[in-house]
């Protein structure tokens, strides 16, 4: 069976600086996979190559059986690749429900329509509201995003991506900046995500990673250091040395 998302010998260098080296990576359909690594390991570069913001120097990226290496960002979204951002990337002065509706409208292909009022597209609005409801944001739907507490903004970040009904979802540090007290709410949301979405999570919060992921890939200096189940990762001496540190295990 083909992977939901796959890279083959993916490389990226900026001049003499190599930030991704021969990365072979498979994200299985419905996977709960985490990508970890110290700062500067190349996680963000890797994600940017997956989403099409950055072109790899060599190697291949596939969604299912299709080679998408040369496709742009928009074409990849159309093939079911959704993402969230480490730093909130929201439509700040727009209502929460519109934030989601913008994504739903693009997916439904209605966003070019110029003459009917947007409010006449009841299905877009209803789908967006239903989605917010599942994330516990229904009460905030009509408020501007900028006025929401930070933790809720992180949830809107996820909600927009879900509005695309992705088959593959890249979560870039979904709990970044959220106090530990509130990060359980993010985890609840992540646990409740549809099982058929293949999820790759990039995260620094090891508690969250170990509770959420079924597989973990460790990246250091642009290369895959180790891949395995959380138990294998925790037991691996190498990983402990370069990344986890004794106190985490």
């Amino acid at each position, binding site marked *: 069976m083909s992977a939901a998302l796959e890279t083959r010998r993916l490389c990226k260098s900026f001049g003499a600086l190599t930030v991704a080296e021969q990365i072979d990576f498979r994200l299985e359909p419905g996977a709960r996979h985490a990508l970890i690594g110290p700062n500067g390991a190349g996680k963000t570069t890797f994600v940017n190559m997956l*989403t099409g913001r950055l072109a790899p120097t060599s190697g291949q990226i596939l969604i299912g059986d299709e080679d998408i290496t040369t496709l742009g*960002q*928009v074409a990849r*979204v*159309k093939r079911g690749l*959704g*993402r969230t*951002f480490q730093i909130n*990337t*929201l*439509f*700040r*002065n*727009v*209502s929460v*429900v*519109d934030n989601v*509706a*913008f*994504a739903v*409208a*693009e*997916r439904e292909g*209605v*966003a*070019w*329509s*110029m*003459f*009917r*009022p*947007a*409010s*006449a*597209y009841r299905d*877009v*609005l209803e789908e*967006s509201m239903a989605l917010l409801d599942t994330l516990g944001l229904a009460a905030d*739907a*009509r408020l501007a995003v900028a006025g929401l507490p930070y933790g809720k903004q992180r949830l809107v970040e996820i909600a*927009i*991506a879900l*509005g*695309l009904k992705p088959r593959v979802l890249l979560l870039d540090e979904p709990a970044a900046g959220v106090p530990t007290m509130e990060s359980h709410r993010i985890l609840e949301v992540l646990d409740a995500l549809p099982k058929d979405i293949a999820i790759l999570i990039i995260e620094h919060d090891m508690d969250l990673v170990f509770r959420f992921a079924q597989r973990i890939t460790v990246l250091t200096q642009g290369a895959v250091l180790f891949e395995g189940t959380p138990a294998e990762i925790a037991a691996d001496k190498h990983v402990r040395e370069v990344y986890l540190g004794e106190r985490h295990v």
Partner: protein
Amino acid sequence: MTHAGGYVADSRIRAIEWLPWVLAVICFFAAPTYVPLGSYVLTMIIFALSLDLILGYGGIITLGHSAYFGAGAYAAGIFAARVTGEPLLGLLVGTLAAGLLGLITGLIILRTRGLALLMLTLAITSLCLEVANKATDWTGGADGLGGFKVQPILGLFKFDFLGKTAYLYCLVVLFLCWWLVRRLVYSPFGASLTGVRENNVRMHAVGAPVYQRLVISYTISAAMAGLGGALLTQTTQFVGLKVLGFELSGELMVMLILGGVGRIYGAFVGPLAYLVAQDYLAKQFPEYWYFGIGAMLVLVVMFARGGILGIIDALIARVRSRPS
């Protein structure tokens, strides 16, 4: 009164939105000596509306919008001088010419953003100005283009020297533009422009063809600016280089900011306030009337970022929140 559009917005026309039209008709009967100024104000409102569409909704900052206004003005003038003085055809020619210019230039310049884009918009106006200046056979160069005759509208309504026909003509065209802009702003297309303005990166990430959206909105806006230019040519029966100048673009930007950006009606209030103030100040203080305009802008930018309509909104909010 912000007219933000989106999927929960109520797009029905509110009672207050008829006010400008009622006032426009009242002015026509109540102040006949101001009718020519009124026509000019209406024309500039069309121009400001076209800018609001891309600046207020799409977030495209431009100082070159006079390129399209001027293209429409010259196209209509040349058409009247060389082909026919039929006004509606002339409007169509002006609109299409400016729209085409908008499409071609938009395809090139909208690949850039921020300051680079601002510089390119300036460059396009300058180029157009130079072309109009040098192509004297067609444009009359620095002397301007005049002496053409504009026929009666639909063969029925002659342009009178008091400017009454011109005023009503401008009013009808403005009404159509307003209707179109309002439709666009409340449509999914308009909502997606808001998305681009609010967060370009995210818009890409939800799969929106951002560049194509911007080019299309820019083309529509340019066409509407050209329509305004063509209207000015027909109502004044003259085109001069001033319509292509960078100063006009700057003035337009000032008018829109004064009225309020991204609100539709800011494009109504701004030109009206600006041009009436200009008319008044120029009579009272002929030597330093620009000082008054400058002071007005400084006050608005410092204390009321939402423009005149923003001030009104804030006042209404204050009255409503006061316990009775």
